């Protein structure tokens, strides 16, 4: 994709946000191949679009095998209700758990290291109840289960990470798209903060590099970005319904950088506006060049 085309895409993305027809611009993708890299599904049912997006990528069996221990990692960081769009949509989470079991997963685990009181976050977000109903093992973070991992990254030498995610066969990252005071947006890569131990506040000194460092260690099998509702201001915690926009969309794929690039466009930004996307692209974690990807849009 040439620079001019890229600008066109961006402009169209901006336009499509304002008209509500998200990602129509991708339907003309000239590099289309049979293999779908990223699926964007839009529709009224969170469960429906999640299913549709996974199907478009080739179905859940492309990612999950019989007997796998799967970690589904939503964002449960805050004591907020689903309609406040600070935590992942519970229906998206439970749908993914259901799909994993359909594919024969042995166990599906759900947890997050929350910022507010964990009991309130798990309960108020609706995720604990929805995930448990879908058959997942929902657990609170156990401080004993952090293991210091050698990272030798751009800024992080080592950091305690959650053992259960390190030991999982498959990882599905299910973040929600929100604004953030420092990293501008919190999307997929930033969701890994929920499996980091120690004093996480410190990583804000070099947040972009830190996020890339952790994302190089935790490689998800699948990323499903929840944009059923997005939080456009006062993130990442929100609380004001005026700041929430209904997009009724999920974006699924395997490339952490590409997914976050797509996420940026939801907010009228580009991938390169986000430090961690730019660095992630540079160090080869993934690509922010969407023209190299086969993106499929589904409207239900």
């Amino acid at each position, binding site marked *: 994709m040439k620079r001019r085309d890229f600008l066109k895409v961006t402009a169209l993305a901006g336009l499509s946000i304002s008209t509500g027809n998200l990602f129509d611009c991708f339907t003309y993708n000239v590099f289309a191949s049979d293999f779908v890299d990223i699926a964007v599904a839009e529709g009224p049912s969170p469960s429906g679009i999640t299913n549709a997006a996974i199907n478009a990528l080739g179905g859940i069996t492309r990612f999950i095998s019989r007997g796998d221990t799967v970690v589904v990692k939503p964002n449960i960081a805050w004591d907020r209700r689903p309609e406040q769009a600070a935590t992942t949509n519970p229906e998206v989470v439970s749908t993914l758990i259901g799909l994993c079991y359909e594919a024969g997963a042995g166990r599906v685990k759900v947890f997050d290291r929350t910022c507010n*009181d964990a009991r*309130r976050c798990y309960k108020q977000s609706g995720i*604990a109840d929805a995930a448990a109903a879908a058959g997942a093992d929902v657990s609170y973070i156990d401080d004993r289960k952090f293991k210091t991992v050698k990272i030798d990254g751009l800024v992080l030498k080592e950091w305690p990470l959650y053992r259960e995610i390190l030991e999982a066969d498959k990882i599905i990252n299910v973040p929600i798209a929100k604004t953030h*005071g420092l990293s501008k947006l919190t999307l997929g890569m930033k969701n890994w903060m929920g499996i980091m131990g120690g004093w996480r506040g410190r990583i*804000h000194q070099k947040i972009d590099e830190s996020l890339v460092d952790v994302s190089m260690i935790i490689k998800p099998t699948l990323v499903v970005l929840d944009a059923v509702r997005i939080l456009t201001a006062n993130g990442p915690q*929100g609380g004001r319904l005026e700041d929430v926009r209904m997009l009724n969309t999920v974006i699924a794929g395997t490339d952490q950088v590409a997914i976050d690039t797509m996420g940026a466009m939801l907010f009228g930004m580009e991938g390169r506006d986000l430090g961690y996307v730019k660095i992630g692209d540079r160090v080869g974690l993934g690509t922010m060049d969407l023209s190299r990807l086969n993106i499929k849009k589904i409207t239900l």
Partner: protein
Amino acid sequence: MKTNLIKNLRRISQGIFLLLFLFLFIRTESQGADELGYPVKIFLDFDPLILISTLLSSHVIVGGFLFSLVLIAVTMILGRVFCGWICPLGTIHNMAGSLKKKRTRAIHPHWYRFKYYILLFVVVSSIFTVQLAGILDPIAFLIRSLSLSIYPLFTSTIRAFFDTVYALHIPIITDISEFIYDILKQSILSFQQPFFFQAIFIGFIFLTVLGLNLYEKRFWCKYLCPLGALLGILSRYALLKRSVSEGCTSCGVCETMCSGGAVTDRNGASRKTECLYCLDCDDMCPHNAVSFGFGSTEKAAPINLERRHIFTSVIAGITVVPLLRITPVSRKGFFDTPLIRPPGALNEREFLKRCVRCGECMKVCITNGLQPTLVEAGLEGVWTPRLVPAIGYCEFRCTLCGQVCPTGAIRKLTIKDKEEVKIGMAVIDTGRCLPHAYGMSCIVCEEVCPTPEKAIWLEERSVINRSGERTVVKQPQIDLERCIGCGTCETNCPVKGRPAIYVINTNESRSDDNRLLLSL
């Protein structure tokens, strides 16, 4: 024939009430929902001493306390059955006393009066608006001691044990211990290990009181308990009466084993107001000479307080008021800024009149931020709750402290009100804040600021670093109209010890004098 029927019935009753108490105590903990769901403060609701002292000190009748009329009525009919059959602290005293094998008659038969003087002191001081009942009220005393000391000690011990086994990683054994640990975590352990200032001190007092049972069984109940004294007065004309028939041989068994120190001589004569109605003497009397019934017309002996001691108690109750209040903390217009009260707390004077220091708010606080004061609120405010954000902040949408407060010293807020009540305001120490003082990026305080429109906002500032390069940093600023003083910023500030952002009680909604802003 001697039977242990009644004794066993009493033990079953004591056991049930103690378990009920402990169950409710353990359930005084968030499950993540907005409402607690259990009437955890119900034992205090039934406590007429708290009813009377609150009524006298702040001239209000808190709704829940109407239950205590039930206890008053029961006592006027059946005597101090509460002490003998229900009181969880009394039951614990029984258990502690069972460590002392030998039963003796009351060592200090005249000390029983002491608790009436305490009662008088407490009541008189409440008339003059100082609320001291909770310090010695058995229910408040028990909840406070368990909450702030014994329960944290218990959970810490259990955790240490299972953590050790976990760290050893012994196959099978560790699996089994983790399985048991999980069950304990879901039943009797707290969600997280609580930590409280003065835990040792408060625990020491509690264990000393229990230890007195080794000197004399039920020492507390006989000589100290002000609720026991109140119920004693109410039981003086109780319809259920103890009588000794002519079959009495003056063997003295009842005198020796009387747990309330009520039986005063070998002939079985007793002071009705001291009788705990355990009915042991009825059971134990070898000649079946002792019986309890409604028919007896025997007159009860008076409590027989000494006039000069009554006088002393009343004077003490009066003089304690100015004594406690000649500290600057009581001076109008003086605010000790670190004294941050829970959200919904009444203004300080009214708050102190009502708080009975039961410690339920501190037990239920989900971040462990509510801590007992020692002298921060003056001696009058000893063991009242204050928020220490360096330990834990006030969770934005949590209203549990107001839900469990038995006297309304902390109002029960709706979530909407809670989101607006200010308990103080945040202050930035620009000499320590990373973006302000060192030009480094941080913004943690802004990220965690919970108000829907963030009270902490970021000002972009261009700064020059040591190499002469110009960079832009985001420096936090505080919007005083939005800031509610919850302290989330202080808890999470990466600068530990003396955080670069901290909360003071200035601008708290509950005080007209401590407000900072012209309009709110």
